[in-house]
């Protein structure tokens, strides 16, 4: 897989520091898991994180802290991976997403449907899988916030170029675009969105309420 579009460094750095909003975190994680270039950048930031630990002003631990940890060491239980809900539609999803609960598919426009991903709700972004039929022209839209996309399957193109599997697309309110889905197969994307999506044109305004999740 050749990845042509990467996540911006600021996002990767915030991801490595564990400071990204939940939905955005997920999209960056899925992209980086498929992209060696971005993974190396994250590793570099983690190395700087290690230097930050070494450079940190030591804060005295509470009294009895070490002993408390020793007690817990003795009761040590192996970490068990929690099983996640799984249905056949999840096959082919990146490993990272398989640990999440993914809601039922909802049709939001002709040829376009989405499945919401259940997050803890602590963040401000929403995440979903967006599936569009081959050749679908997405509605012209602008964002009031940020939209992060990682292509999982198929492709789309807009003024920024062509985006195929693994590619990362960063959309903010400066972008007024109308992606065209590649004709070869349906396009499935993982999307995280903050703020609202504003559909332009009559039809867009009509379906906007549904897209707002």
């Amino acid at each position, binding site marked *: 897989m050749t990845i042509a579009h990467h996540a911006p*460094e*600021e996002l990767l*750095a*915030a991801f*490595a*520091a*564990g*400071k990204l909003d*939940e939905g955005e*975190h*997920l999209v960056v*994680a899925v992209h*980086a*898991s498929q992209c060696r*270039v971005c*993974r*190396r*950048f994250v*590793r*570099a*930031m*983690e*190395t*700087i*994180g*290690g*230097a*930050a*630990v*070494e450079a*940190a*002003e*030591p*804060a*005295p*631990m*509470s*009294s*009895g*802290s*070490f*002993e*408390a*940890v*020793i*007690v817990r*060491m003795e009761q040590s239980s192996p970490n068990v*991976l*929690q099983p*996640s809900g799984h249905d056949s539609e999840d096959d082919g999803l990146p*490993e*990272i997403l398989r*640990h*999440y*609960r993914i809601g039922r598919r909802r049709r939001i426009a002709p040829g376009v449907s989405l499945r919401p991903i*259940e*997050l*803890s*709700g*602590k963040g401000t972004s929403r995440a979903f899988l967006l599936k569009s039929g081959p050749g679908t022209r997405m509605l012209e839209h602008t964002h009031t916030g940020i939209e992060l996309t990682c292509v999982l399957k198929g492709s789309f193109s807009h003024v920024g170029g062509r985006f195929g599997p693994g590619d990362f697309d960063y959309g903010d309110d400066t972008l007024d675009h109308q992606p065209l889905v590649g004709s070869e197969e349906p396009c499935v994307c993982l999307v995280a969105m903050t703020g609202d999506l504003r559909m332009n044109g009559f039809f867009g305004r009509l379906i906007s309420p549904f897209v707002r999740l």
Partner: protein
Amino acid sequence: MTRGSQAVRKSLGSMIGRSFRQVRSRKYDNERPKAKVEWADLIGRIASHGDRDAFRLLFEHFAPRVKGLMLKAGASGEEAEEIAQDTLLAVWRKAAQFDPASAGAPAWIFTIARNLRIDAVRRSARAGVAVPDAELEYFPDPADSQEIQIVKRSDTEQIASAISRLSKDQSTAIRMSFIEDRPHSEIAEALRVPLGTVKSRIRLAMSRLKDSLEELK
């Protein structure tokens, strides 16, 4: 202190007191392990035979630093203490997973603390929704083939040399901004430079790091 922990302290005393003093007598206090290798060594001792002396040394060095970093990054005293304890507990439990060919013990410990912090935030959100552990989202390594090991080792070296190409000012700025999560204005004050300088320094440092990583590929 509760009676329980007193008992623990006592049994600890008999369990590790003597051998720990022996370790101390090797002047660990004056020349505490500096090289990555030595921290890695201690982790290796935990992995191979559950060495509690090794654990104590790691705890004494890293727990207060993890706590300090968490405090700086905005955690409350209680949260920072909890994350520091949990981090060291995880060092004990996961010692066998530590890869000496990786970026080194401090970076590994940093990622453990970071993941625990993310998990704490997620769990504080709303009960009932099962969200996975952050650990699963930072590209857990596939089964290590020899080939992967080689790639990993050269990655680690290249990453280290890419970082070494940053100036001290640049890496400090990155660290303060992203790892310690301090606002640009505060960084400007701490480094005694104008706000604009902080912004451009961070931007430059990031693109330099990115370029170095590309060149070294």
